[in-house]
């Protein structure tokens, strides 16, 4: 009888330990920014910044001062308005594609004005910015924009923003900016 009880307690302990080990979140899941979902067209508000998507379009090629940049996919350009809240800050953006893959703003857009990657948000001042992504066209519909502080500090605010409901128009001849 005593042995049975001991075995039952031991089994329970092993099961409890196994359950804890299996459900224990890894560091990648435990230390995440706090993501708020923002519906299409709405203004998103995080602790250090607020942002809104004003529009989007596609460009088959980017014309830069250093020459034209083409792509195997397309360039998705989002026009944003963003502002700081309490402190000057920089922002970074990722496009979470329809397949769940994560596309960072492309470094190939270097030289375009008003790039989100290099701009500083000042408290209380709206800045108009563009975020440019290079991606396959089928990642666009069903995807969303993730705006966050650079290097994704844990427990900091981030915004997962739905894009406009109308599909992006293709801008064939890039307008001079």
């Amino acid at each position, binding site marked *: 009888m005593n042995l049975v009880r001991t075995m039952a307690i031991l089994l329970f302990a092993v099961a409890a330990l196994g359950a804890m080990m299996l459900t224990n979140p890894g560091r*990648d899941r435990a230390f995440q920014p706090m993501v708020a979902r923002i519906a299409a067209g709405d203004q998103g508000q995080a602790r250090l910044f607020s942002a809104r998507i004003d529009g989007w379009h596609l460009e088959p090629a980017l014309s830069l001062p250093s*020459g034209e*940049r083409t792509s*195997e996919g397309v360039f998705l350009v989002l026009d944003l308005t963003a502002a700081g809240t309490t402190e000057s800050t920089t922002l970074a953006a*990722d496009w979470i594609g329809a397949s769940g*893959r994560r596309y960072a703003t492309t470094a*190939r857009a270097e030289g375009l004005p008003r790039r989100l990657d290099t701009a500083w948000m000042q408290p209380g001042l709206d800045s108009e910015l563009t975020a440019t992504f*290079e*991606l396959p066209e089928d990642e666009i519909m069903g995807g969303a924009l993730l705006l966050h502080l650079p290097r994704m500090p844990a427990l900091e605010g981030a915004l997962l923003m739905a894009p406009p409901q109308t599909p992006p128009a293709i801008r064939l001849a890039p307008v001079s900016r």
Partner: protein
Amino acid sequence: MTSPEPSLLRRMIRRAIALSGIAAALLLGWWMRIEAARSPDLLPEIRLGESVSLGRTQLRPDSLTLEDGRLVLRALAENVTGETQSSPFGIPARPPEAVIGDSVLPTPEIVLLRDQAPLGQLQPRLPEEISMIWTLPEDWRPVPVTLRFSRETFKLRDNLYGQASWLGHVPAATLTALPGTAP
């Protein structure tokens, strides 16, 4: 509270159990050394047109040519992870090494074939044709060149933080070819 001295057999069993871990560790270590000696580290030898996995990137070397005194490797690079890689050849970056005889050529310049811009990021699902360009020494004569590829290993939960990491470079494959002339 005094307990009677356990019998010799019981004491021996206890000590054997306590020692079994050490014995198992010794045996396992010994067996692993034998296994390592039995299978020598032979790097796979690939040919032009065959793919090799470099960890974050899958690389398919297509042609090795000589252009204006420079050695050019055309290749198709594909990001096989789920996110943009800003250092496709790992961190720290270790692009393929070109070896002639005993000397290793300096780090190549890597550009996109489409517009000759330097390779910065590699986006998932967008394979890029790239060329790696090595500057050759003055006194170079056409001899077979060996390219050494190294791979980063992925660990879902690393030992330090328990987070997904790309750790360390290990040799992945070699390719030996005589550089042709540019088409």
